[in-house]
C-alpha cells in the first residue's frame, strides 16, 4: 500500500514539475521579481502594472531625477529599457544600438552596435523608432529596423544567433518589440503603407530556427486558420475567410502589418495581437471587407493556429490600424467574472472581449468626438457607420471632411496600463480629426502604396490634441479625463502606490492619482516623451524611468527634419502638430526618478 502511494505520489510530482518546465519560466520568474522590469510590457498580460508601492500618491510629489543617460542617438525614442538583476538594457532608435548598464557603477558593461544599410530609414513611414528588447534565459533579443532578429548574450553582448525576418527592399521593416512566450520569440513586420504582406513569425529562442509564420491575409494555409475550428464571435469562419473578401490578388499587397504589442496567457496558450491597415489607403480601390486587416487575433503559441479572431473595422476607410495592445485582465463584466481582453483601438472604440472564447462583451467610444460610427453592434460586431464620414462614399479625388478620429486614431501604439487595485485602465489618447482625400495609386515594390492625403486638426471648437483618461471596461465609460495640449504619445505605468505615470509631447513626465486623476508631480525632461514609463527596485529603493526623444508619427516634423513642410506632409501630422516646434526639439535620453 505504502509503495503504491509513493509511486503515484512521485508521478504526480513529476507531472507538477513538468508543467513548469516551460522555457520562459526564467522570464516569468525574473518578471515577478520586483527588482526587475524583465518584460517590455511589464508582464505577459500587457498590464504595465507594478506591485511596487514605495512611491505612492502620498509621497510622489517629492520625486526628483536621480540620474540620467544620453543614448547618443536622436529621433523618436519609443519603448522602455529592461532591468534584470541589477543591469539595465537600453535600446535606441535606428541604428538600434543596445547598451547594458550596471546600476551599481553606472558603467556601460557592453554595447551592441548593429551595422544596417541606412536606406531602410527612407521606408520607415513613421520615424525610425524601436519599441524595445526582450529577455529570456540569458539572452537579450533585438529586432532591428532592417528586420534582423538577433539574440545577444546578456552577459557580454556577443551575438548568439541572428536571422533575417523580412525584406527591406520591398519596404518591410522592423519597429515592434520582439516578445518571448514559452520557448519562442515572436516578431511582427512593419510596412502597411508599402503594400507588404503582414504576418507574425515565431522563432525558437535557443537556435533562431523559424517555427511558424501566421499571415494576416491570404489562403488558410498562410493565415493558419482552420475553417471548422477558428471562430469569429463564436461562428466558424469557413473556408478562405480572408481571400474571399478581397478582389482578385489584391490581398497580396494587402498590408495587415503587425507592428504593435503582443500579450500571452499561459492558461489558454494563446497569444493576442492585432493587425494593421489594408493596402491602400484608398478604399475605392480595394472592395470587400479586406479580412483579416484591423483584426484581433488569438493564436496558439505552439502552432500559430488561430483559435478566434474579430475584425473591428471591416473595409477600412481611415487607416485605423488594429495593432494596439491587447491587455489581459480578470475583471467583472456585466456582473460576471471574466478572463477579459481589453483593447483601445485606433478607431476610437474601447473593446472588452472574453479572451478564451473571443466573445464581444463591451464596445464603447473612449473619446466622445468619435463620429465615423455611432456604435458597435455587439452581436454582429459591426460598426454602425455614418455615411457623412465615409471616405468611400465621398469618393476618390474628393476631400471628405471632419472625420474623427484622425488616421492616427484615438490611440496609437502608445500603450495603456491597468491597475488591479482600482480595476481601471489608464489610457493615453489622441483628440484629433481629419480631412481625407483618397486617390488612385499603383503598387510598386518598395514604394509607398497609400493613395490619400490628409489634414489633421483638433476637434471643432477645441484646442487640446490629447487627453489622459481612466476607463471602466465593464461599463465602457470614461471615469476621469485630463486634457493635454498635445496627444499623449507615451506608454502609461500604473502602480500599487495608487500612482499612474505618463509623459507628454512637450516633455513633461507626470504622476497622477490613480483614483481621482489629480496631478501630483511633473518634471520637464529634455525632449518630448514618446517612451513607456517603467519602474524597478535597486538596493531597496524604487526608481521610475522614461525615455525622452521626440518623434514617432506625431513628432515626425521635428524628428524627420521637415517641421516647416506643408500641412499635409507626414500624412497630415506636420499640420496637426506644427505647434510642437514651440515646445520641444529633438533629443535622446533616459531620466530616472526616485524619492
Amino acid at each position, binding site marked *: 500500500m505504502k509503495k503504491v502511494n509513493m509511486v503515484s505520489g512521485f508521478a504526480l510530482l513529476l507531472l507538477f514539475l513538468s508543467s513548469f518546465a516551460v522555457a520562459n519560466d526564467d522570464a516569468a520568474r525574473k518578471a515577478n521579481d520586483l527588482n526587475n522590469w524583465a518584460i517590455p510590457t511589464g508582464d505577459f498580460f500587457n498590464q504595465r502594472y507594478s506591485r511596487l508601492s514605495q512611491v505612492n500618491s502620498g509621497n510622489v510629489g517629492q520625486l526628483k531625477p536621480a540620474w540620467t543617460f544620453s543614448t547618443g542617438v536622436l529621433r523618436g525614442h519609443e519603448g522602455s529599457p529592461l532591468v534584470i538583476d541589477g543591469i539595465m538594457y537600453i535600446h535606441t532608435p535606428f541604428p538600434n544600438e543596445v547598451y547594458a548598464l550596471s546600476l551599481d557603477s553606472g558603467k556601460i558593461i557592453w554595447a551592441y552596435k548593429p551595422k544596417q544599410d541606412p536606406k531602410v530609414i*527612407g521606408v520607415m513611414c513613421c520615424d525610425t523608432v524601436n519599441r524595445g528588447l526582450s529577455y529570456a534565459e540569458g539572452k537579450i533579443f533585438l529586432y532591428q529596423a532592417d528586420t534582423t532578429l538577433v539574440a545577444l548574450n546578456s552577459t557580454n553582448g556577443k551575438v548568439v544567433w541572428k536571422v533575417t525576418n523580412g525584406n527591406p527592399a520591398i519596404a518591410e521593416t522592423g519597429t515592434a518589440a520582439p516578445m518571448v512566450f514559452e520557448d519562442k520569440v515572436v516578431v511582427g513586420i512593419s510596412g502597411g503603407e508599402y503594400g507588404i504582406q503582414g504576418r507574425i513569425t515565431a522563432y525558437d529562442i535557443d537556435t533562431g530556427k523559424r517555427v511558424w509564420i501566421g499571415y494576416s491575409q491570404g489562403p488558410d494555409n498562410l493565415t493558419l486558420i482552420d475553417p471548422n475550428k477558428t471562430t469569429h464571435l463564436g461562428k466558424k469562419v469557413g473556408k478562405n475567410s480572408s481571400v474571399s473578401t478581397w478582389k482578385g490578388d489584391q490581398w497580396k499587397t494587402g498590408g495587415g502589418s503587425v507592428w504593435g504589442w503582443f500579450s500571452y496567457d499561459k492558461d489558454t496558450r494563446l497569444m493576442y495581437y492585432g493587425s494593421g491597415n489594408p493596402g491602400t489607403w484608398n478604399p475605392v480601390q480595394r472592395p470587400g471587407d479586406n479580412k483579416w486587416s484591423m483584426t484581433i487575433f488569438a493564436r496558439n503559441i505552439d502552432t500559430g493556429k488561430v483559435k478566434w479572431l474579430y475584425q473591428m473595422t471591416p473595409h477600412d476607410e481611415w487607416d485605423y490600424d488594429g495593432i494596439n495592445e491587447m491587455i489581459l485582465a480578470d475583471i467583472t463584466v456585466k456582473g460576471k467574472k471574466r478572463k477579459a481582453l481589453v483593447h483601445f483601438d485606433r478607431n476610437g472604440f474601447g473593446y472588452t472581449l472574453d479572451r478564451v472564447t473571443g466573445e464581444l462583451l463591451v464596445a464603447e467610444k473612449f473619446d466622445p468626438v468619435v463620429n465615423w460610427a455611432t456604435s458597435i453592434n455587439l452581436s454582429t460586431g459591426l460598426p454602425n457607420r455614418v455615411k457623412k464620414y465615409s471616405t468611400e462614399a465621398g469618393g476618390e*479625388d474628393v476631400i471628405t471632411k471632419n472625420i474623427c478620429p484622425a488616421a492616427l486614431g484615438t490611440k496609437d501604439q502608445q500603450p495603456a496600463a491597468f491597475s488591479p487595485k482600482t480595476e481601471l485602465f489608464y489610457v493615453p489618447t489622441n483628440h484629433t480629426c481629419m480631412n481625407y482625400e483618397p*486617390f488612385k*495609386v*499603383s503598387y*510598386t515594390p518598395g*514604394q*509607398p502604396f497609400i493613395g490619400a*492625403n490628409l*489634414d489633421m486638426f483638433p476637434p471643432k471648437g477645441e484646442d487640446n490634441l490629447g487627453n489622459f483618461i481612466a476607463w471602466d471596461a465593464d461599463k465602457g465609460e470614461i471615469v476621469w479625463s485630463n486634457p493635454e495640449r498635445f496627444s499623449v504619445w507615451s506608454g502609461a505605468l500604473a502602480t500599487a502606490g495608487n500612482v499612474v505615470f505618463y509623459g507628454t509631447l512637450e516633455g513633461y513626465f507626470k504622476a497622477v492619482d490613480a483614483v481621482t486623476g489629480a496631478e501630483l508631480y511633473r518634471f520637464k525632461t529634455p525632449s518630448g516623451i514618446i517612451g513607456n514609463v517603467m519602474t524597478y527596485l535597486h538596493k531597496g529603493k524604487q526608481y521610475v524611468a522614461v525615455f525622452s526623444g521626440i518623434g514617432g508619427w506625431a513628432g515626425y516634423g521635428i524628428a*524627420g*527634419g*521637415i517641421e516647416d*513642410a*506643408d*500641412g*499635409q*506632409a507626414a500624412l497630415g501630422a*506636420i499640420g496637426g502638430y506644427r505647434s510642437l516646434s514651440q515646445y520641444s526639439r529633438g533629443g535622446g535620453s533616459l531620466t530616472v526618478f526616485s524619492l
Partner: protein
Amino acid sequence: MRVVSIAVRLGTLFFCIFNAYAIADNQNSFEEDKKYYVVDEQGRVGKKTYNGWRRYGTCAPCHGPDATGGIGGGASLLSAIKDKKIDFRTFKQIVSEGRLDKGMPAWKKDANVNKYYDDIYGYLRARSDGMIKKGGRPEKIPK
C-alpha cells in the same frame, strides 16, 4: 585653300544658324510649356495641376515637401526649372531615366509617376513661375 576656307565658313554659318534655331526652339518650348498648368488669378488650380501636386508626393522624400530640396539629398526643383529653363521634354527625360550617378532612380516603371509626367511638370512649373505661391494642398478651381 580658298575652296576649303569657303567650305569652313559656310559650315560654320550653317552650324550657327542651326544652333540659333535650336536655342530659339528650346526657349520657345520652355515658354510654350506653361500650357502644362492651369492656375487662376487667385492661385486656384485645375484638376491636372492639383493631381500634379499629389503625384509630386513620390518625389518629396528626396526633393523636399516644398520642392525646394530635401534631406534626402535631392535638388531644389523650383530653382532648377527656373534657372535652367527646363522644358517638359527635358523634365520627362530626367524623371523617366533618372540620374543614377546622383542617386536618383529611373521612374519609368512606376505607374504613380509615369502616367502623370505632364501633371507633375505642370505643378512644379506653376510653383516655379510663382503662380502657386507655396507648397501644400492647392485650392481647386470650383466646378
